């Protein structure tokens, strides 16, 4: 399984000279195996991925964690959406009110966007993430609701005996009297348990988190505690705050990278990791 990061920024795209190393595009991750191509979220990073997929034919599975704009905004600029030779399967969190098509159409329609969902040129199929694991080729995908405002899922993606856990927007410490509680009572733990690679929300410093409780995101320290409890091999920090410049991210990460425990990697655009 090959994992490539195309967008690692949280909340809003933040291009500029101060974010050039970690990148300014919002959430998008490519996951490739011999028989499957998965795209995790459709933030602005998906535009460049689409360009890189010009030679790809057949099926693409786009797995959305939720429908906040920083995870959806790039979908209309993803070239494969407009190609008739592409079979595009879009998966998203179930909702009790509107189905996935209606919710996606709120963005993919005028006045917010000129092209309607039904007018995309590819063969589009929409799926609610089911409560049980499902297969895409030889890949097993397990989605589960996690703590974040609105319907939101995290994913556990397994292939060839290796596992990636993807929880880009996640506030497991919300309301917890101490964090983490036992694994059974920790949001997302089952998805991350023993994963080879965990991509996890690490938007804030501790001081920032104190004034942003309930916004749906984690501090770097909370991401670390979550990763340690889950016993993951590697932690990729993700959903960087748009106000955090490269040098600040380096400083924030340095302390964690010096600790014993999971290897900590600052998520940056272009990073490629192999799970073999």
């Amino acid at each position, binding site marked *: 399984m090959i994992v490539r990061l195309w967008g690692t920024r949280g909340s809003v795209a933040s291009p500029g000279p101060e974010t050039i190393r970690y990148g300014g595009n919002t959430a998008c991750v490519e996951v490739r195996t011999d028989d499957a191509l998965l795209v995790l979220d459709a933030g602005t990073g998906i535009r460049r991925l689409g360009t890189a997929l010009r030679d790809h034919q057949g099926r693409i599975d786009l797995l959305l964690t939720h429908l906040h704009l920083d995870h959806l905004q790039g979908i209309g600029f993803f070239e494969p959406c407009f190609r008739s030779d592409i079979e595009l399967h879009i998966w998203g969190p179930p909702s009790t009110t509107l189905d996935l098509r209606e919710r996606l159409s709120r963005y993919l329609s005028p006045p917010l966007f000129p092209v309607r969902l039904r007018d995309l040129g590819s063969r589009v199929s929409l799926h609610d993430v089911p*409560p049980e694991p499902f297969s895409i080729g030889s890949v097993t995908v397990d989605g*589960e*609701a996690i703590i974040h405002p609105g319907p939101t899922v995290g994913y556990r993606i397994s292939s060839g005996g290796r596992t990636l856990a993807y929880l880009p927007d996640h506030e497991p410490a919300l*309301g917890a009297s101490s964090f983490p509680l036992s694994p*059974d*009572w920790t*949001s997302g733990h*089952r998805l991350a348990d023993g994963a080879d690679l965990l991509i996890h929300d690490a938007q804030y410093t501790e001081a920032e988190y104190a004034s942003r409780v309930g916004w749906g995101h984690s501090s770097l320290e909370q991401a670390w505690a979550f990763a340690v409890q889950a016993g993951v091999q590697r932690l990729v920090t993700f959903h960087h705050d748009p106000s955090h410049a490269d040098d600040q991210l380096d400083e924030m990460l340095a302390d964690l990278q010096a600790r014993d425990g999971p290897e900590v990697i600052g998520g940056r655009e272009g990073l490629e990791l192999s799970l073999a």
Partner: protein
Amino acid sequence: MAQPIERILVRHLASRLAVPLFLLDVQGTLVFYNEAAEEVLGRRFDDAGELSFSEWTSALSVRDESGQPLAIDEMRFVKALRERRPAHERFDFTSADGTVRSLEVSAFPLQGQGGSRLGAVVIFWEAAADVAPR
């Protein structure tokens, strides 16, 4: 067993409330109760952990307004939870230290995405003195 997100959120909320609150799973197991509810049960959650339906109901000693013992299995709120309906009732309760208190209880089932059954929440209040038992 990993708890569904809805129950995790209720637990976090409960741990910050001053009113006693029980969180039950679909089998009626008491999977969490908050600090205020420890007084009702006479046990600390950190010590006792989860309690099966028979364990937590046997720990409650309840009487009706005429002072007759009430089988908790027959109480309106327990019946209602089994039928997945909300309920509210009042009863007298002898706490672990022997003090008799009048309590009101509200209970409601939890339903998740796709209609999934997640259990129930039971909240207790001290009954106001000027409110007649029902």
